[in-house]
């Protein structure tokens, strides 16, 4: 699940609040159970994610599910910027 195209993918923790991105992949550094948890929350490849804030934790909106992720996790979630923002 590690990213193949590093130049096109960014860690979710680096994305500015207000941006919309698409999920590319979960890094292998994330615990398998926590990866399952993220999938259960609705995070799946190509799904859009709105970044709401980065401090004190990364807060995102996936569909209508608002999730707070510690940076330890968010920095291993790889995302791609939307075409308009890229």
């Amino acid at each position, binding site marked *: 699940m590690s990213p193949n195209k590093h130049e096109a993918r960014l860690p979710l923790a680096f994305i500015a609040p207000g941006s919309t991105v698409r999920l590319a992949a979960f890094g292998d550094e994330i615990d398998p159970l926590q*990866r399952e948890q993220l999938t259960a929350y609705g995070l799946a490849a190509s799904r859009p994610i709105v970044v709401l804030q980065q401090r004190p934790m990364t807060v995102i909106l996936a*569909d*209508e599910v608002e*999730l*707070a992720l510690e940076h330890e996790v968010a920095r291993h979630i790889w995302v791609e910027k939307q075409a308009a923002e890229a």
Partner: protein
Amino acid sequence: MTTNASGADAILLVGHPNVGKSVLFHRLTGAYVNVSNYPGTTVEVTRATARFDSSASLLDTPGVLALPSRSDDERATMQALLNENSRCLVQVGDAKNLRRTLTLTALLAELGVPMVLALNMHDEATARGVTVDIDRLGEELGIPVLTTVATGGEGISPLTHAIAQARVAESLLRYDADLEADIAQVAALIAAQCPHPHLAARGLAILFLGGDTAVADWLRSQNPACCGQLEKWHKIAVDRNQGDLPARLARERTEAADVLAASVLSRAVRSSPLWSQRIGQAVVHPLWGIPILLGVLFAVYEFVGVFGATTLVGLLEEGLFEGILNPAFTHLVTVAVDVPWVQEMLVGQYGLWTMGMTYALALILPIVTTFFFAFGVLKDSGYLPRLTVIANRLFSLIGLNGRAVLPMVLGLGCVTMATLTTRILHSPRERIITIFLLALAIPCSAQLGVVLGMLGGVSFTAVLIWALAMVGILMFSGFLAAKLIPGRRIPLVTELPPMRLPIVGNVLKKTGSRLKWYLVEVIPLFLIGTFIMFALDKSGALPAIIEAGEPLVSGWLGLPKEASAAFVMGFLRRDFGATGLFAMAHSLSPIQAVVGMITITLFISCFASLMMMVKEQGVKIALGMVAVIVPLAFLIGGLFNIVLRATWS
């Protein structure tokens, strides 16, 4: 083969956390259970007779983030599915999160039990511009689908009709060919060697391959001989998928749910976020979150510490009990009872009425009532999950994550209940640290009220010293515990449910339900405690204990020697002990009041919470914690006595 306690057909409410199952359960049964506004509150399965069908029992299962089960909550739900004589499943879903709801439907549909899908919180979906084509969704799934707003009672009657028409759902997907081959092989084995009376073998096979331990245990219990073959197939499938089997099954269900959701869902473009979203974001904002937190804490202090512990306690204790009830009851006992020691047992210094009932009803009841009401408002508003975000950095210093703030805050209500809810934490290490800190430095609502009532009467500085001492000890002890207990910290990932305006009726019902539970527990313990104090006093043991404890209590802590009695009471209940100090507040100096309250707060928890510690962690660990906590309480209390006498005039 089933373990259905009532023997009646069961209707199971199943769904994600925080979708309104508990409120719906109340609407369908008339019984009230705690509304969960954050994951993990409903730890046990709740059962009651259905209002619309007295032959059926309705079960409120704990919220599941996903199946196969991983957490204790999910295992409890899976066990209910396995062990109940299920007539029907009512999947309660969040109308505005259809994709996620259907991901769970994709698995429940495979179990072969008649189902109904209730899309709850329809009002919130509408407010967000989310519209679901209900008729089409019902056709695609082949089951009754309807919308409800449980908090407002909307859609309840159609739901009871739909339950009567529940049908087995159509499968949402066919997995990839290699996965289907594994599922078919395992399902054939289950059907032949350990069939379930209600659940389809295919559904059990998918759960087993996904690593559901509750299903594996059930299969093992039915036919141990079959397990070897099942394990063999499981290993082959896992190896072929390079350990990614559960994730692959989950991804395919998510994709199927995605396709179906896209075909029935429309979303209006919104120009601006809703007010509830704005407030929700402000509450976890790095700048605004802290003043909002301080404001919330101040409001709780004013309501519980000032209004509950001062105004209401004053009215009840001085006005009602000391002014009217106690003189009347004392007169009645004096006239009706000839035996002096019985008179003393009922209305003496350690009388069952004058001490036990007066403490329980005049001092504690108003405090816990106001606390439970305030806690209910915070919980139903959606503030508590956001507190985990604010608290995360602080808790990371003690090897925990922000999720641990939930048991800690619940501990401010009842440490016993909070000890049980440490099950929401993800690792044994987190549970041990949290239970230790709960037992050491978290005062329960009754004790908190007594502390606030007593120290609030001294000065704000006294309250501040006590609060800073508790936070400091909590952090330092947690820091040391995190260093000493092996294991790694799990980073926080949590859902933030929408902020909502709490419905006063629901909060009042919940407060009433909690008070009933509290009084049933507390009044017998207060009466037993009072009787033990009476027996110790009459036998001469209490004066001897007070005498023996004098060097520690008077010499080291600097308290009057009579305070020893409060510590003896504290062995029975921590709040009982604190109330004992509260009762002698007029004879204590400000320093004595602060030292006394710090020591009694750190003292071991009540007997009930000690039993809960034993249940959750075993005798060895629980006694180990007590062996650390009791000397630590006196050590720290004495150090504060020395420091405060040197610095606080």
